[in-house]
């Protein structure tokens, strides 16, 4: 199913249903207005508006962002050549798995410590699929401890699919992705134990990490593993930088699936994101200039009303 079909056919029905519900809401509001008589009008208290106008700035940014992303996705689909800068941490994934294969030791992958409804975890699961393809191809053992059962279910699905696509379905074992503990530090203790006992050659941390980031990364370092980390939590980045060989910072984590797959449609989204970043830089510079000359209060209010 191509992009046009996806946006056109697949989403037509749910979009239509949502539109009908929205229209029904308006019709309902109109019916209430029609019931108002001149006598009852004085007793009516004004209701809150249906649309939250205080969030109009967020809507405007979202619409511009979506348009830019979609334009670049279309261009990518049309075959335009899009330059994406090199991300060392992602280039090293295959190398690191190769090292584990040579040493006959497993690869440990942790898709973060948050639930599946967090976008960082979804990014981690996406990268897990790519890593699992490489381990399936080389026949390298893979271990994926998770903290939440929903991540367990998604991880098992992704890894199984990767092993099937790599042409090695027999090597897939349901226990590759395993639930170890729901508590943050119980999870950390278990994973640290695995690191010291099994001595994985490669540790990959991709997702949301908190206070346990350094506990995990330092233990992996002590166990002599090559370590690649990626997180969008700014407070944890220094710990990963200090203890890991490669670190993906912030947006690089979200770019990983597009970068590793090299799929034009996904790369188009990355380019759109870069243009949006440029737009934000321009807006910030304008703000700095206006504020410096004491003319920026109205400008600041455009961005702070949400």
């Amino acid at each position, binding site marked *: 199913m191509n992009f046009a079909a996806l946006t056109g056919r697949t989403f037509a029905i749910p979009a239509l249903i949502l539109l009908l519900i929205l229209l029904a809401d308006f019709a309902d509001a109109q019916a209430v207005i029609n019931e108002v008589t001149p006598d009852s009008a004085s007793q009516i208290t004004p209701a809150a508006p249906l649309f939250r106008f205080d969030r109009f700035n967020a809507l405007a940014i979202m619409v511009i962002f979506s348009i830019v992303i979609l334009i670049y996705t279309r261009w990518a689909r049309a075959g335009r050549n899009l330059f994406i800068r090199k991300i060392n941490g992602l280039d090293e994934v295959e190398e690191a798995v190769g090292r584990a294969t040579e040493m006959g030791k497993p690869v440990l992958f942790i898709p973060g410590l948050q639930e599946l409804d967090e976008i960082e975890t979804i990014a981690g699961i996406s990268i897990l699929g790519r890593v699992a393809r490489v381990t399936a191809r080389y026949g390298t053992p893979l271990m994926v401890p998770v903290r*939440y059962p929903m991540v367990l279910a998604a991880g098992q699905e992704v890894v199984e699919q990767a092993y099937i696509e790599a042409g090695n379905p027999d090597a897939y074992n349901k226990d590759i992705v395993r639930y170890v503990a729901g508590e943050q530090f119980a999870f950390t203790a278990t994973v640290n134990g695995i690191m010291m006992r099994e001595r994985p050659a490669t540790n990959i941390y991709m997702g949301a990490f908190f206070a346990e980031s350094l506990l995990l990364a330092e233990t992996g370092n002590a166990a002599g593993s090559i370590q690649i980390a990626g997180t969008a939590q700014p407070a944890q980045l220094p710990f990963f930088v200090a203890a890991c060989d490669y670190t993906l910072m912030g947006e690089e984590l*979200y770019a990983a699936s597009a970068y590793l797959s090299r799929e034009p449609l*996904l790369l188009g989204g990355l380019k759109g994101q870069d243009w949006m970043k440029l737009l934000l830089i321009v807006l910030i510079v304008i703000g700095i200039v206006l504020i410096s000359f004491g003319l920026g209060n109205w400008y600041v209010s455009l961005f702070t009303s949400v």
Partner: protein
Amino acid sequence: MKTTVPIIIAFCSGFIMIITFFLNPERGFIGRLEPEVLNWVTIVGGFTLLLGVVSIVRINYGAIKRKSENRGYKLATLIAVFAMAIPAMLPTGMSPLLGTQPGSIYDWLFNNLDAPMMSTMFAMLAFYIASAAFRAFRARNTEATLLLTTAVLVMLWRIPMGEIFLNSIHHSLPGMINTYVMSGANMAVQRGIIIGAALGAAAMSLRILLGIERTYMGK
């Protein structure tokens, strides 16, 4: 079909969350949908908990059965899982030791075993920070030396004795470290990373919403 249905569900759920952000929850059906969708997430999460229990029991029981090298740890895990879960699930009416109220077995295990072990793990972070800092702050090149100098200044600024020492050099030195290092360079870099990450998250969400990104389904 295996891909199309999840894509439609993802689109509808995401679209509802976006629309409700811009609509007043007091008005209309759609405005009230957001908490409903979040409730569904909790309900689905509750059902998947069983998957987690099955996974933990199967892996640990399998290792004990195979008489693997570390079966002692596996046995301790299984005992811990059932010792916490079974008394907590039984009705309080049978005995005051059951359930999760203060004075129950679950409460005692939580306060006297679980909580201290969690605190111990967290406290160990101090030693890990020391060892990571020792490695990171070696003055191997210009950048590493700059990092070391900045770190020493910030650490001095953070402790009372260090602040007295910095004040003795120049009274405005602690304030300058705060203004230029922490609220200046440090905050600017952090905000740059946060803006980049937020854009990345938004772009990925949009790709998932439109079905362009399907790697989370193994595609």
